[in-house]
């Protein structure tokens, strides 16, 4: 039996097929992903192309209203930008930020967790106290703080160019402790196992044991919290952008769109904020549901 066939026949896939929630969530995530990745090809308009904007198109309601225009299916904002296109492009940016931030968190968290769990003692005590302290603050506060400091330190002319990196760093640094904790816990279990002893007996070095023996065995739980944290990172980015300290309006993410729409919410132009909001909620909810399912599926004790 080859690898693919074996995977398709596994309990994992079987469990997936029998869980409507998992299938629905996966479909939504897939849909959002396709929309975000292919935003340039799918979107009816390019919201960044200032030349194509026409103020006469501004504040049009969705197509089913009497004033609606079928070429702007979900309406337009105050500058005449297509809301649907804005959502597609915005999702792309939100996802890029979140994925990069979590990748950063993962790298830092796994490294720290492996070191703390494998060596124990002073290394462990130091790293884990840092983690403990950071976990006493809400991660959004850390992200705000880091974001503020970096902006203050960087010269003004560099800020625009580095905006994306700053926010990725701010969100990433606020989320690594969770990964470090999980990896540390699993590492402490794995390092006492006989297969690690067997590698030590023949003199395999510590770093190599950590990378080739322990790491593959601690990735299961990491995968679960990665999924859950991805949803949270998307929210972090949206929150920062909503507060106006995230990405600039020239690169509007879902959070920025909601912030802009928020100004019009009470004057009747509800679609500018609601559609990006619904997209954000649907995406984060699906990712979290998928993460929950993954946790149950990978934990044999709960089955």
């Amino acid at each position, binding site marked *: 039996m080859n690898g693919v066939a074996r995977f398709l026949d596994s309990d994992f896939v079987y469990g997936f097929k029998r869980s409507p929630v998992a299938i629905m969530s996966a479909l939504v995530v897939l849909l959002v992903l396709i929309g975000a990745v292919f935003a340039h090809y799918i979107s009816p308009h390019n919201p960044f192309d200032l030349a194509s904007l026409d103020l006469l198109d501004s504040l049009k309601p969705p197509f089913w209203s009497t004033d609606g225009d079928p070429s702007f299916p979900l309406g337009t904002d105050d500058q005449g930008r297509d809301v649907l296109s804005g959502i597609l492009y915005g999702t792309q940016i939100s996802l890029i930020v979140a994925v990069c931030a979590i990748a950063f968190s993962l790298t830092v968290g796994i490294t720290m967790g492996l070191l703390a769990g494998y060596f124990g003692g002073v290394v462990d005590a130091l790293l884990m106290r840092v983690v403990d302290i950071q976990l006493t603050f809400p991660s959004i506060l850390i992200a705000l703080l880091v974001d503020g400091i970096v902006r203050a330190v960087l010269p003004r002319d560099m800020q625009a160019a580095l905006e994306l990196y700053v926010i990725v760093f701010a969100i990433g640094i606020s989320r690594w402790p969770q990964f470090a904790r999980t990896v540390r816990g699993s590492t402490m279990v794995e390092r006492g*196992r*006989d297969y690690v002893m*067997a*590698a030590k*007996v*023949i*003199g395999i070095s510590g770093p190599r044991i950590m990378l080739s023996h322990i790491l*593959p*065995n601690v990735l299961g739980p990491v995968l679960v919290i990665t999924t859950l944290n991805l949803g949270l990172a998307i929210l972090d980015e949206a929150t920062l952008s909503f507060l106006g300290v995230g990405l600039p309006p020239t690169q509007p993410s879902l959070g920025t769109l909601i912030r802009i729409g928020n100004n019009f919410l009470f004057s009747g132009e509800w679609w500018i904020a609601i559609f990006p909001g619904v997209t954000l909620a649907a995406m984060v909810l699906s990712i979290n549901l998928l993460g929950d399912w993954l946790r149950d599926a990978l934990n044999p004790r709960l089955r």
Partner: protein
Amino acid sequence: MTMQVLQAIEVSRHFDVSRPFLQRALSREGRRILRAVDGISFDIAAGTTLSLVGESGCGKSTVARLAVGLYTPTDGEIRFEGQPLSSARAQPALRRKMNMIFQDPYASLNPRWRVADIVAEPIRAFNILSGTKTINDRVGQLLTQVGLSAADGEKYPHEFSGGQRQRISIARALSSEPEFLVCDEPTSALDVSVQAQILNLMRDLQQKLGLTYLFISHNLAVVRHMSDRLGVMYLGRIVEEGPGEDIFRTPRHPYTRLLLDAIPDISAVGRSRTPVGGEVPSPISPPAGCTFHPRCGLANERCKVEKPPQTKVGNVLVACHAVAEGRS
């Protein structure tokens, strides 16, 4: 004179099992030291098997880990082929001559690795062979040698039964072409019929490859089957040591006798007996003098205060005042 592969000279290993500093300070308690191994000595001659037997907590698994350098002794010295163990282990050419087989076949193989990679790890680590094809051939040969097939290398550990996994473990241990193997309860997680397969395999390999074994077990019948020499451990000390047959024929130390008497044997159908009471005390605060005295029928005042030295009786070393004084 035969060469001694491994020598342990007055080896001790203590573990600090104190609670964290702050808690200790608050509750005003001292450090707690667990004397897992407390001054033991033995030699293993090339091509022979020394077995260490004892109940849980007697320190036999700690000895196994000391013997391959996973732990360093707190006191005393271990020599491998005449050199101090730490310097022997610093040289790959000597380090590859020792390897280990573990108790739990479900924990001793990395579940994420293919069997071929598991078996090949020592070959790659010591650069014994190079080239994918050459290494694969050698792995196939090793798997065949332990009674599996070369094609099994493509599979993952979870596809095998406990006995088959233990064979994989043995193949891995053999792949560094060792002369000395430490076997830590290699069959205690297996069913008896599978245990017989593994024990037979280990003896065949010993004869064929001239291996030296340090064999750790709690099962006296298995130990009798496997060993040339035998050491009986109790609370970190060897209480009786000598040729296996001598000890089984005439066990002298009261603890050895208790153990032999306690084991249910299939040839003793319907036997009724009065077992010795008491339990193994904690190695953190062992009794003074001879640590066995609270459970010993022969104990007197001297046993309660004075640690018995090893006395030679025939071919056997016994650490017991009663035996030395002829009170038994």
